[in-house]
């Protein structure tokens, strides 16, 4: 298992002959985002084949109640980091419920469904706990009064989870996935960097394409 920094250093070191140096054209932040994209790709591909979510992909998120965010009395809104989308109409949000796992929210997939359920005599909100996730926000409708819910999910950017420490904690990916991500980095950003010389003169002319000077 590797930390995010170790994954990046390993990939850079591999393409640059074992050296990890600071004179790169592509910034570490940009490579970090690419690692997240590679991870999402690996998780989606792996899930499509196995229909399983690997235990190493999960992270736990503790939503924080913010009174200023609320816009109604029948629901509670929380910010939540974005989650990965899997190709079979499911996503990375796997559990929203109480911290002791004794009670959970049932997932509602879209607002139209939620709206219909609101009026449905049997399914209507208030009979069960429901949760709707949309674009970095979860809406919780609770009947059993879950006080401090927790979220367990495969988040699309692990560093967005406040309890994840990118310098110290293992990156949430299985070892095969780490290998895939390192190769993905090489194929996308790093290979391009080592094969493209930097045009260091800002004069509007691509100096890398100029004829080489004759040897003296």
């Amino acid at each position, binding site marked *: 298992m590797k930390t995010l920094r170790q994954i990046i250093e390993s990939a850079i070191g591999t393409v640059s002959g074992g050296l990890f140096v600071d004179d790169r054209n592509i910034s570490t932040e940009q490579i970090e985002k690419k690692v997240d994209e590679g991870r999402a790709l690996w998780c989606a591909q792996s899930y499509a084949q196995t229909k399983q979510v690997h235990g190493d992909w999960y992270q736990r998120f503790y939503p924080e109640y913010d009174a200023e965010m609320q816009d109604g009395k029948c629901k509670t809104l929380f910010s939540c980091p974005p989650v990965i989308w899997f190709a079979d109409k499911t996503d990375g949000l796997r559990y929203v419920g109480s911290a002791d796992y004794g009670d959970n929210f049932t997932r509602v997939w879209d607002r139209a469904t939620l709206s219909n359920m609101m009026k449905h005599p049997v399914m209507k909100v208030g009979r069960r706990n429901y949760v709707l996730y949309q674009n970095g926000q979860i809406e919780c409708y609770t009947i059993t009064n879950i006080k401090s819910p927790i979220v367990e999910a495969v988040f699309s950017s692990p560093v967005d989870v*406040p309890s994840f420490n990118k310098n*110290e904690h293992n990156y949430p990916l299985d070892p095969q996935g780490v290998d895939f991500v390192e190769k993905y980095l090489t194929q996308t950003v790093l290979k391009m960097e080592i094969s493209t010389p930097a045009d260091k003169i800002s004069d509007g002319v691509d100096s890398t394409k100029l004829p080489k000077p004759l040897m003296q």
Partner: protein
Amino acid sequence: MTTGQEIRKIFENKVDKSYSKFLDNTKMNRLFKMALSNLSEKKYMGLTSQKEYDELRYQVRTEQIFSVLNSKISIAPLIITNVTANGLIITVTTREDHNLLANQDVSILGVLGISSIPDINGLVTIFNVPTPRTFTFIATFINGSYQGGGTITHTAMIDDYQHLFAVKCKTKELLRGLQVSECIDRTPCIIKFNKHNNFAIGEKIIISDHPNNSINGTFYYEALSSIKGKLWRDKKMSVPVRCSSSTTQGGSVSREYYNWAEPIYSDRKISAFEESTADNPKVATADAYLKFTPDVSEITIDYFSKNLAQVDVSDNINDLELVYPFKFLMRLVDEAIMLYTSPSRDVLLAQLTDKTITP
């Protein structure tokens, strides 16, 4: 033993003496100064194996610790542009921001036209700093007026800086809204936070203004979960922190990083990916400073020094092998010959030296 005189003899042996005899000691010292500068730059560019590092044993400086003021540290002497006297207060103006503080000692050199007690061309203590580019000091005697010149050096700068290898920055990150909600009297003390966080084992945390004063300070943290952990005084976690039990919530919590900085170049600041953060600091060279972002209080720097022991071809006492390996000195002679062949237009000598050059 290889002295300056010995170097001169080797040079003359390699170059036909009928050419070299018109090089007096001053000219030859200047030639070796240029050769030394060129060669050290070439060696710096080729610092890839232990061999090169060994040859530059006095120029590679590592793990040098400096305090940093206003997130920048001076890497060149400050240039004086004006000196004025008003009563017994002397005001010195510098070309760039000096980044100096009152009561700081600075060394001034090369000011022309003014004499004072204490001597303006010596060590003076700053009285106050009226603007970022001026400072004053108090004299008991002043005579004359400023005629130009003058540089300033001080201990809070890197006066022999030439090139940067790597720099580690001490930064602090305040974790907004995070407070200690409970202290448990154990060995070591266990603290519980008001919300979940990402502190990892071995990280340095700073707790301030907590009502339980025994947990205020800088500690090493051993996470037990994402909401509680143990406090230690040392990195090896052998000296525990003791505290009394309390359930009062309060204070503020910060994390201290000491991470390597990445260079940031002016033409890349436009990129949204080049933002510096407390755990990913950046360093830029500008205005004769190393400038750090975000706020940095201390650095540990590895750099290439410009402090070179110069060759004096008239000297017959000092052994240059104490500073440079013999092989490096022979390479230095070759470099001097290559420089010498250019003005003398001796193409044959240049080609011969190039073929037999010491690697």
